[in-house]
């Protein structure tokens, strides 16, 4: 087994990722990129935000640096820090600084998971100044035209604690994502998992039934991503009811009653 190691600066998406546009998001993104405007993607989990970013990175032929944001992430984690190497302090760029230097796309996934004081560091980069202050180095990084900042979040999770500040939001061009229309979702599931059109249709119908349960015991319905997982299991010979249980029902909930209900819904189709 060999593991391919790629420096973030050289992470070019070589092959065209499968992406089914559902609106004018590709042209909007392209226009924003050409105008050096940062982009905010919002939508429920598993509806294709990250895949869209992959696709755009491929289209624009720029390296893609993705950061999964989390609560303990500090500004230093993004910008860079001094490390001690062999008794000396050595500066190491964080992912944001690396993306700026190489003129890549920096994708901060689930930005609201990061603390508010951390997100503030992107402000000078996200307005017309397009600079990244490196306070500890006493330098300013000026972003080249090729650099672009993309952030994403799921408004469905938005709690009082995980809100995106107006001062942050109002720097971006926002693209809203949702689960794709039925026909498109069937196409996606079919293409990504390789299942036949009938199975893909049944999986998509099942997802729609679970989405009706949002707010009635489920936090979220089944995402397109989960359907693809279930489809892949089915393609590998797992019976559809078992695949739906493992890849969808069990993932959505731990509540035994809800689990039975979700399984019963899958049984109406398979």
């Amino acid at each position, binding site marked *: 087994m060999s593991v391919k190691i790629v420096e973030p600066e050289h992470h070019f998406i070589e092959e065209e990722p499968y992406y089914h546009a559902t609106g004018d998001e590709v042209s909007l993104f392209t226009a924003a990129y050409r105008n050096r405007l940062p982009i905010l993607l919002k939508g429920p989990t598993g509806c294709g935000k990250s895949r869209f970013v992959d696709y755009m990175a491929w289209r624009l032929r720029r390296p893609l640096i993705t950061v999964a944001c989390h609560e303990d992430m*500090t*500004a*230093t984690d993004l910008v860079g*820090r*001094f490390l*001690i190497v062999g008794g000396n*302090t050595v500066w190491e760029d964080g992912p944001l600084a690396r993306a700026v230097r190489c003129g890549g796309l920096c994708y901060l996934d689930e930005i609201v998971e990061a*603390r508010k*004081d951390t997100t503030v560091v992107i402000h000078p980069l996200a307005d017309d100044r397009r600079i990244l202050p490196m306070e*500890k180095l006493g330098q300013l990084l000026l972003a080249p035209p090729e650099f672009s900042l993309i952030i994403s979040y799921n408004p469905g999770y938005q*709690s*009082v*604690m*995980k809100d995106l500040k107006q001062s942050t939001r109002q720097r971006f061009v926002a693209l809203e994502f949702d689960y794709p*229309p*039925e026909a498109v979702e069937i196409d996606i599931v079919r293409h990504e998992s390789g299942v036949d059109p009938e199975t893909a249709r*049944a999986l998509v*119908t099942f997802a*729609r*039934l*679970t989405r*009706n*349960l949002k707010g*009635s*015991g489920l936090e979220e319905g089944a995402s397109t991503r989960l359907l693809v997982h279930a489809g892949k299991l089915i393609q590998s010979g797992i019976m559809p009811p078992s695949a739906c249980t493992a890849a969808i029902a069990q993932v959505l909930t731990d509540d035994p*009653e*809800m689990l*039975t*209900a*979700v399984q*019963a*819904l*899958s*049984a*109406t*189709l*398979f």
Partner: protein
Amino acid sequence: MSIPLEDPPLPLDFLEERLEALLEAALSSRRTCSGPVHQLARCCRADQEQILAWVEMLARTNPELAFQFAQHAPDATQWLDMTGMRQWLGVAFDRYDQEGLHAALRVVKDPQSFAQQRAPEPGSLFLATIVHCLEKVLTGLGGRPLKIEIGEQIYTDTETLFLPSRLARFPDLRQNERLYRCVAAGLWAQTRYGTFFPELSQRLSAFPDPERAGALYYTLENHRLAALLRRRFPGLGRDIGALTRTPPWPASWQEASRALEEASATPETSWRWLEWGHAASEWPETPWHQGVLMMQRVDCAMQQRLQKQRHLFRRMVGKMLDKHPARITMPGLSDPSLLTFEPKPDGLTFDFNLDGQPLTPPESLEHLVRDIVQDLGQIPPEYLEAAGPGGYDLDADSSNTELEVWQGVYHEEGAFLYDEWDCHRQDYRKGWCVLRELPVTPSDEPFVQETLTRYAGLVRHIRRSFEMLRGGEQRLKKQDRGDEVDWDALVEALVEARSGGEMSNRLFQRIERQQRDVATLILVDMSGSTKGWVNDAIRASVVLLSTALEVLQDRYAIYGFSGMTRKRCEFMRIKPFTDAYSVDVERRIANIRPMEYTRMGVFIRHAIHLLETVEARIRLLIILSDGKPEDYDGYRGEYSLEDTRKALIEARQRDIHPFCITIDQEAQAYLPRLYGPSRFVVLPSVDLLPLKISEIYRKITT
């Protein structure tokens, strides 16, 4: 070796004495307990003891019920084991709660029927065991939310599905469960795919025998829906095919059958075949699982709903348009073309457009439109007409303000229903308490200002000490990762390394914001016992605690509670989490007044509900009280304490920390059992409450 012998039965005179004591209220000169005593004497010792315990429990609820139980329970042991006896008792209790004494007596007087119903066949499945799951399945299938209830016959009135209390068609429990799903899905399809259109009843009345015509229409519709379900839900279709049997249709109806099975068939197709065949000599049969048509009940439910929907729709659209800037510039709001709905592919959700511009409606309006379209197939143009100069807002017609509904006959409309724990039965009374949130009327009394002046010194102290607690920044040293090198740690580590030790990797420091992620709900006792000084002290404490919470910037809500009987539990809104502290809040605090009783369990359950909507690392429920929970209708003593305790356990299970501050000097006797050894404070005198409350809060949250 000694063989353990069973205990001998209880002596007759003991039984007589005991039953007389328990059933005293149900006995008279003409009715003694000799009957039950002799019946009970025939039982073994274990059964006798258990039955006596149940009689005692029942006697607390209703002496007549207890008497009848004592009379019939010994016989019941012939047909029921102890688990069955417990179920029988549970059913009797439920009937008593829901329908009253007579319904409960019918159950108690006929244990044999219960026994026959209970487990005559293996695999028998009670609706009660799967009803919640079934409701979720129906929600998943989509459309208007439907309730499920037990019915003598299978039918729907378009809002509730009535299903048999038990299914035992198959020896296997799981098959019966699937059968329940098939039956429910069939009824769901009737409500979802247009079987009951509004003019149905009127059109049926044109037939010489409307009832028979209705029955035939129902058969035809079910045939159409069965085919539709097979197409859309193949798994369900397979189950229906495997678990039910539909009698073959007569030869003369074969063409109708084929037409109804086509994907293009609609209720109108069924109607056409009804007109074609209603005079025929033979008709197809409706299989049992598809139920029956109850036209009157459908009419009644639909009429009420349509009226409500129309009213609500115009009100909500009016509100939405009021907010929309287009309203100012657009003349003739009554022009229905301004607001349009484009159906999405599922047929039940819509894109809203106002004068060609897309509009995002509130979720409640989307659901309402879904319900209207499910009933009427469209939004009728008259729904979009403004009702005169008042615009769409028909509030003037509506007398259903929150308070009026509460005081009127329909006081359960829009209220919250909560279960209550009955320690005697060791089970919940379902939907037992009716709770409504009501606003506290603001008062002009300058109570808050006076309190702040009177306790000026304390207020200063609170501000100072609580500011120190507020989330500040903290430098964390010797960390394994951080923003900066912790030079002190580095020097130490190098020294350690040079002296032959292992060099630590904790060489960084970082600044961390100490966030107080606390949400607190303060629940204030507004029962009648908090009169005079106690009320003043409680109000002053709320003022001072609010001061502290404002300084701390913790999120908090203040509610009062009081009520009378389970039917009228009032949760008084003083400051919800979403409101900022304001003059209005101060005026509401000033008007915290003693009212009626303290049915604690239901209020705690509602507070849990509210706290669950707030995301915080620590969720705290502070109860400010002056005595034991008590209500007018027998909610006192062990019963009330156990219900309160159960509600507090529910809170802790949901990660909510309850804490009680009380001035009841006897509270030491019961609070430890309710709150645990350290989750309460009993203040020796009422005037200490304002002085201590902020300090207590500080202790609990640091």
